[in-house]
């Protein structure tokens, strides 16, 4: 068992090394079935604690809080990789409801539906009603804006949004920015934010204090996770430049159906698992399509991401756990 874990760690290290990531600020973080490891960054230095009893904080104390990110529910998908995405999304909600520290809201980082159909969005809304956390914030994935350029997505989820669905909000001193990078995609290209959204973002963060923790969430990774498979955003560098002054930036993405993490200075990038089906690791298959695993293993490759903010620490603790 320890050998398997060590191999797994080495493989993750290898993957990160091949990525060309600077070793300084390097973060080794993974959750394996049945256990959770909490890594927090304190002044850029990773500090770990066993997760068994939950994060060291009294729920609701001061400005402390947590929220949960789910992603890629692909409601309507019914192929062998997962014939029942309703059940696995419900399992994710049940998992969230069972967390020792209850989240104050949920973030869904897109691909809510599989084909942008009204009944698919309805299904997800219905299942999320059973979450104890009543507030859910969304950003669209490319599967949510098919055929109508996001019109039906916006009607449903864009009430407090600008443009094609971007928006920001504050929660207990943390500034959250929801971005849309799945519209007007060019042939051969990656995700795209566009000039109008970037201009909005520049203004949105301009007057915030440098000490404000920032959380950015968008569907497609905002860094070059694996461009050959479209896992990146053409103009994300501009967005990140607007966030340079901040002491703590956490970027939460989906799209790739697996966890991947990168730390670059004060910015932590993190992608979530899907609640529907896994996808292969970069380059390990011909294409980034749904990856079939033995039925009994499916829930161990699907999951949620719990994010904890402890006031005064500026950094957020990001914990992935599977549905197994």
């Amino acid at each position: 068992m320890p050998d398997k874990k060590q191999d797994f760690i080495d493989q993750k290290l290898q993957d990160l090394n091949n990525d060309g990531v600077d070793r300084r600020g390097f973060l080794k973080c993974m959750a394996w079935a049945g256990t959770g490891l909490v890594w927090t960054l304190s002044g850029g230095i990773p500090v770990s604690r066993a997760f068994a009893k939950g994060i060291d904080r009294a729920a609701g104390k001061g400005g402390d809080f947590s929220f949960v990110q789910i992603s890629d529910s692909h409601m309507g998908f019914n192929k062998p990789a997962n014939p029942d995405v309703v059940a696995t999304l419900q399992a994710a909600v049940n998992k969230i409801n069972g967390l020792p520290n209850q989240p104050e809201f949920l973030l869904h980082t897109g691909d809510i539906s599989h084909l942008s159909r009204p009944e698919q969005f309805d299904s997800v809304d219905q299942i999320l009603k059973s979450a104890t956390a009543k507030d859910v914030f969304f950003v669209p994935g490319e599967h949510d804006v098919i055929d109508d350029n996001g019109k039906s997505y916006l009607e449903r989820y864009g009430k407090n949004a600008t443009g094609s669905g971007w928006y920001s909000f504050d929660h207990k001193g943390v500034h959250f920015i929801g971005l849309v990078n799945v519209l007007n995609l060019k042939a051969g290209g990656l995700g795209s934010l566009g000039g109008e959204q970037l201009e909005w973002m520049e203004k949105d963060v301009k007057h915030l204090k440098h000490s404000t923790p920032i959380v950015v969430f968008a569907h497609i990774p905002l860094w070059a996770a694996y461009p050959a498979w479209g896992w990146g955003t053409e103009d994300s560098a501009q967005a990140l430049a607007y966030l340079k002054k901040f002491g703590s930036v956490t970027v939460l993405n989906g799209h790739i159906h697996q966890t991947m993490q990168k730390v670059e200075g004060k910015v932590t990038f993190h992608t979530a698992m899907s609640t529907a089906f896994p996808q292969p690791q970069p380059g390990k298959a011909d294409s980034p399509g749904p990856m079939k695993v033995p039925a009994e293993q499916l829930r161990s490759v699907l999951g949620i991401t719990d994010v904890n903010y402890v006031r005064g620490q500026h950094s957020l603790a990001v914990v992935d756990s599977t549905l197994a």
Partner: protein
Amino acid sequence: MTKLNVWIAKLATPAAIAILLLCAGTANVAATDQPAAVTAEVKIDNFSFGPQTITVPAGTTVTWTNRDDIPHTVVSTDGVFKSKVRDTDEKFSFTFDKAGTYPYYCTIHPKMTGKVVVQ
């Protein structure tokens, strides 16, 4: 010349001309008569169009069939054609009447690109 001969000549000449024209006309019609419609297939699988570049004569109807387990679209980069989302086993067809090069891509997965060359 007898009156009869003149009459025959007067009748025959336009008739002959008419027949010649008719033949010419018929030949033209024969030349533009369509044989069985020309079709071509592109398979969509593994996040790619196969063949990625297809060359066809003008008038060909190209049919894309999605064999992938993920939906895709077929959209011209120049606004010439645009499919609705195609899930597994669904098809999209377009008839290319004019010669030219028609690059296209999947708007859901823009790394997927293809080209139809019409001659």
